[in-house]
Structures are given as C-alpha cells and as structure tokens.
C-alpha cells in the first residue's frame, strides 16, 4: 500500500484481519505452515501427486471465506466454481437484462402452493456466487433467533448460541467494511461498532422514516456491506465508496459492495488458492471406507478429476443437496433435501406525490427490528422491516405478476415509477414436512435431474405475512401513499442439509462436518437449522469462517 494513500481521509482496514481461532493464530504467527498436511488416516491409499489438502465447491458466501482461511493456514486448496470469473469493472452493465448471467439459469422446478421463484430471485453463479447480486443487507441475527424451539416449542434450535457467532460477525463487519449505525438500536450491546457510517438514505428510506415515526415504530439506517467511504481491503487495495447506483441486485461495477470477488477471493488468491472457474462438479469419489477421495468436474467441456484429502461443499441450498443426492452421499439421516425454508418477504408498494426515483441509492437503506417479537403476534418468531428501492425491469415483472395489470393500465401505472416506494419484511420460517427439495425425472441441459422445490407457506408464515402487511400498509398510509398494494414473495432457500447435535436428524454437526463422511464439510445456507429473521449472507460467512477454524483446530490436534 503506497504510503501517501494512508494520509487520505479514508478508513484504514487492519492489514491482517482478526483471526478468532487461537490455533490458526498460532499457525499464522509461526513459520509458514507446511504446505502438505500429513494425511488424516494412515491407512489411506497413497496420495497421488496431484492430491490437494482441500477442494472447495462453490465460491459464494459459504465457500469464499473458508477458502481464504484455509489458504492462509498454508493448506493447498483448489476452488471449483460452476460459473465464470467476471471483471466487474469492465463487464457489468447498469442494465438488468444484460446482467442475467449472474443468476443460476438452469431450470429448477417450483412446486407447492407458494412456488419459489428462483433465477434472479434466489440463485447465483460465478466467482462470488450469489454475493455478486445480493443487496448487501447484512443485519446480524438477534440472539433468540437461534432458539425458536426453546422459546416457542416449535422449529429447531441451533446447536450453539449467538456467542459462538458474535466474534465472527465482528471480524466480518471489520474485514468487509460494513456501513451501519453505531450504536445499533436492537439486541445486546456490542463490543465493536460498525467500521463505517451508514450509507445515505434514499427516497424510499426517507418515506419509511416519515411513516414509521407517526406510528411510533423505531427505524434506523441499516447495516449494508457497501462502503460509505474508501476502505483498504487486504488482497485488493483501496475499494472505492458506493456511488449510489442502486444496482446491487444486478452486480456492483465499482467494487464498493463487499461481494466475495472483491474481498475473500483476492485474499485467498494472495495466499495461494487455486481458483478454477467454469468448473461444474458432477461426481464425488470415495474409497471403500466412505471417505471422499476426490471430485470429477467438467471445465470448458473437458472432464477433469481433482483428488483431495478434504472436501468442502458450498453450493447453496439447491446444488449442495442435489450433489449429495446424485452421489448417494451423507444420506443416512434422511434429512438431505428436507426442512426447506424460505423467508417470508411480502412487499408493500405505494405511490407518493413526492419524487422518489427508486432506482437510486442502496436499495435497503432503512431497517426496523421493532417487529422482531411483536407483542400482539399470533405466530412463532418475527421479522424485520426494510425500505426498498427497485430497478425498473424487476418492478415491472412484479407489477405484472402481482397486480395482473396489462394493456394501457399497466403502461399508465409504470409511468409512476419515479413516485413509487416499497417496504418489505424478512421473516422467520418454520420447517414443514411438505417443504422439501427432490430430484425430478426431467433432465436439465447437462443431462442431470432438475431439482424440484416444494414450498407451501404454512399457517405460521401466513399469519406473519398478514401481521406484516397490516403494519406496512399503516406505515405507507401514514407517509401519504396512495394506491397501496402488496406483493407476496419468498426469498432465500434454506435448510436442506441441516446441522444438529445428532446424525439421526441432521446431516452435519455443529462444525459443518458430515456425520456420515468424516472428511466432508458443508458450508452454506443449507446447514441452517432455522431460517433466522434476518438476511442470511452475513451468517453464512460467519459459519464459513467458523467451520474453517474448527477444521484447522482439529487438524492441528491430529497433527500435534
């Protein structure tokens, strides 16, 4: 980093991110760690020359943080990502349709009474995964989010408490450069504030402040993983501040948003990680003891094999269980593909006399967690409220699907685009036997069975939606909106390879290790035992770092 740059008025990120795990800290402080970790099992077949310590499948929020952690510990790591490696600054257009390549566009089948929209709503591909198009909304869960069963007798508890994740949230907020309010108005007092001040409020956020204040609902600028000032990023250099493009969901073109491609992946590369884009894994190979020995993947039409001592599966809640099911792997609990949850995300839109121009600024500028455990709730859990900006094509699609307007009325309504603003919720969801993912008979373009996702909102989700819609309509009425309408939707697929205390009812243990396969780890939102009442990205990253630390700790013990 050039000396003169430090003098500028920007926030300096610690060059070395804090490392929570004492053993990893010791490793990093010592001599460079040996590249070859001794083999875990002495009776294993002799290693082939090309065997690596770890293969990581998938480079989104689940794969990238642990990839960096493992590489920093001196392990030889290969990452296989199904999608390409983009040059965002050059290739990303401010155009929704042109950015369609960010989504997992192989067809998934949406079944049940409330079929889950996938594609742009719920998927991602490319080096960076879904973080390439996440909104960057990064609230922490509140501690009781992890204990629905303890508090309500419904759903599942996490196998550990919030205190296990808290140090990772602190580390991530510092490393990624999250912009947010200090102090944070909800939840327990925090040891560290956000490293950057909140991003400026756009029109929708200002309107929500206006409406919520009249109803006595507390609001705050939200935590977003986009920079409100320049920030030094280890492995990257200076990342520039957000320019308020409002196109987070179609890809950030200036590196202000903390997607994995501008944060953990360059860090991993700096420490020797081998990134292989366009690599679609089809097979997971095992020895006679059931240990993973390597993976077979297709890269640019060529079939390749990569042998490994440990495998980290980080493909997200659809591709992770699909790979397990296709390979008949880690299935003894009977839970792979089950417990599929999706966050209730009902939106309420209104038209204002004010000019909103909803495409500008960070889309989720404002938050309220006053509805985390509403006093008058007739449901389990709770939700957060969020102001939302929107891009025109996304909005038009929702108007078409949600309002069923067509012809001249649709064109007339859309001419009010600069005057519309929205609020939505993100709410918890309970697992249910009717909600699961399976492999369909129908094959996709690769010749593999298409995933079929069954989702029906149950009574708890329906009651939460009704409660939330009433509150959001109230806020918009108080803020002066007319023509208020609600668009029911669900976002994020969660829970299809859940973690737990026992292999009888969970796929992985609290550290992310598969009960059935000792050298297989899963790190993505498929392991969440419950959905949480906040957006999942930050917690996926926290679990990813924690899984890496637990793995390294175990290796250290074994080798020590």
């Amino acid at each position: 980093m050039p000396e003169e740059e430090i003098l500028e008025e920007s926030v300096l990120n610690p060059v070395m991110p804090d490392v929570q795990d004492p053993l990893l800290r010791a490793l990093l402080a010592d001599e460079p760690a040996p590249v070859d970790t001794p083999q875990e099992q002495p009776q294993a077949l002799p290693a082939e020359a090309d065997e690596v310590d770890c293969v990581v499948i998938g480079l989104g929020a689940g794969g990238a943080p642990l990839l960096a952690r493992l590489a920093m510990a001196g392990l030889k790591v290969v990452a296989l990502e199904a999608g390409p490696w983009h040059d965002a600054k050059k290739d990303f257009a401010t155009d929704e349709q042109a950015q369609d390549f960010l989504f997992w566009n192989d067809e998934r089948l949406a079944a049940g009474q409330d079929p889950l929209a996938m594609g742009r709503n719920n998927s991602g591909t490319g080096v960076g995964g879904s973080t390439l198009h996440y909104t960057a909304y990064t609230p922490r869960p509140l501690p009781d989010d992890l204990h629905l069963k303890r508090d309500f007798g419904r759903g599942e508890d996490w196998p550990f408490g919030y205190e296990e994740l808290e140090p990772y949230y602190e580390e991530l907020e510092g490393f990624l450069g999250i912009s947010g309010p200090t102090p944070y108005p909800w939840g327990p007092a925090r040891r560290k504030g956000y490293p950057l001040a909140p991003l400026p409020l756009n029109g929708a956020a200002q309107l929500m402040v206006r409406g919520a204040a009249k109803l006595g609902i507390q609001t705050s600028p939200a935590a977003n993983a986009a920079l409100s000032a320049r920030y030094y990023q280890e492995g990257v250099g200076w990342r520039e501040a957000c320019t308020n493009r409002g196109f987070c969901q179609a890809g950030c073109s200036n590196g202000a948003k903390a997607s994995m491609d501008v944060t953990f992946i360059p860090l991993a590369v700096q420490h020797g990680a081998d990134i292989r884009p366009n690599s679609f894994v089809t097979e997971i190979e095992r020895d006679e003891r059931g240990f993973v020995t390597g993976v077979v993947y297709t890269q640019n039409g060529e079939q390749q094999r990569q042998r490994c001592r440990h495998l980290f599966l980080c493909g997200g809640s659809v591709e992770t269980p699909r790979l397990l099911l296709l390979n008949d792997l880690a299935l003894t609990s009977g839970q792979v593909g089950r417990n599929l949850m999706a966050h209730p995300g009902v939106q309420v839109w209104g038209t204002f006399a004010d000019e909103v121009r909803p495409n500008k600024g960070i889309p989720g500028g404002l938050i309220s967690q006053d509805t985390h455990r509403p006093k008058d709730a007739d449901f389990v859990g709770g939700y957060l409220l969020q102001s939302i900006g929107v891009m025109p094509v996304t909005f038009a699609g929702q108007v078409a699907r949600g309002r069923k307007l067509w012809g001249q009325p649709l064109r007339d309504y859309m001419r009010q685009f600069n005057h519309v603003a929205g609020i939505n919720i993100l709410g918890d969801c309970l697992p249910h036997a009717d909600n699961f993912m399976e492999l369909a008979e129908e094959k996709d373009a690769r010749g593999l069975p298409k995933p079929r996702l069954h989702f029906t909102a149950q009574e708890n989700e329906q009651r939460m939606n009704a409660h939330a819609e009433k509150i959001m309509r109230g806020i918009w009425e108080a803020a002066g909106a007319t023509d208020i309408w609600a668009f029911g939707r669900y976002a994020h697929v969660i829970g299809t390879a859940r973690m737990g205390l026992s292999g009888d009812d969970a796929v992985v243990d609290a550290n992310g290790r598969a009960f059935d396969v000792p050298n297989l780890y899963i790190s993505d939102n498929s392991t969440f035992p419950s959905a949480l009442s906040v957006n999942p990205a930050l917690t996926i990253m926290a679990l990813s770092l924690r899984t890496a630390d637990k793995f390294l700790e175990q290796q250290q013990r074994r080798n020590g």
Partner: protein
Amino acid sequence: MSSPAYPSGTVRALLDTAHVSDATRAALQARLDAPATYAPQFLAPETFALLEAVAARLFPQPDRPTQPIPLAPAIDQRLADGRADGWRYDALPPDREAYRMGLGGIQEIAQAQFQTDFMNLEAAQQDAVLHMLAGSHPPGTAWQTLDAGRFFEELLAELAATYYAHPLAQEEIGYVGMADLPAWTKIGLNEKEDREPKPEERLSS
C-alpha cells in the same frame, strides 16, 4: 395520482455521454438498433403472428404506430435457443410446449367466444379473450392440461421484462438509471441531478 409524461429523446441523448459506461451503452444500443423485421426461428410463422397480436394487446403501443418496441422476437429467440430464466412453475410443461399449447389455447378461446381466429377480432374482442385467459377456466381443451393463470402470468411477465428493458420504454417512465457515471449524489426525496428528466405535463390516469 395521474401519470407523469417525460420528454422523448432523453435516453438517446444520454447514451452518447460519459454518464453511460461502455458495457451499459452496448446493451442498450443493441436494443435500439434491433432490425424492424424479424423472421421467427422457433414458432411457425402463423403462430408467431398470433404471439405478436397477443403482445400488441398486452402492450398496446398506439403512440408508436410505425415502429413499436418489438416484443415477440425476444420470446421466439429464447425458445429457439432453449434458454431458461432459472425456474419454471412445476404446474407448467417445459417452455416450448407451454407456449405452443398456450397460443393454441388462445385460438380456442377466440373460437369458443367469437367463432373466429384471434387475429380476425377487433381489439375489444381480443381484449375480451385475454380477460378470459387471465381469469380462470377459459374454454378450450388446451386449458384442461395447461394452467391458464400460470401461463398468462409467465407470458405477461416475460413481455413486461422485454418491454421495460427497452430504452424507449425506460424513457417513457422517466428512468435514466443507465446514466449513473460518475455517481448519483442527489438521491433523497424530490432530489434529482440535472441529467434526470422532469415530467413535462400531466396526463389523466
């Protein structure tokens, strides 16, 4: 509230400026430069003509009598390429089959109601057919196996995405988000940069 109308020409003018990145300009210019005529690649010519007629009622463009924003070609091209958008209602068959069946089903509704092809109907009669499609249980054998509501939703959503991706449709709604360089600095309520268009008059809604 009534719908604002914005001056024409704003997006075209901005495309030539440094407010638009090269990648963004390339995407939008390609849509402006699309040829006026299109030979269908997937649908039979008469089926494609039917799709065009349906699209013309779902997105009537009396304000663009000679050069409407093309809508049907995007669907035909996608079906020809076998591209998907990542998901499909399990209730619907694969897209190619759904479009063939659904367009055939629209003819069936027209025949049942007016005893003639959709193409031969007056605009108001065509709208009546589409209202039946958007409602529930329209007449016709196609709709015994094809979920009419879901098909209509998918068709309308795809047309809406195509229409509002076009620079002239974006201009129509006063959107110039493509001109985002170097930054948006005025993002609050009732704030706009000089390059953002002002509504020029009010139409009744």
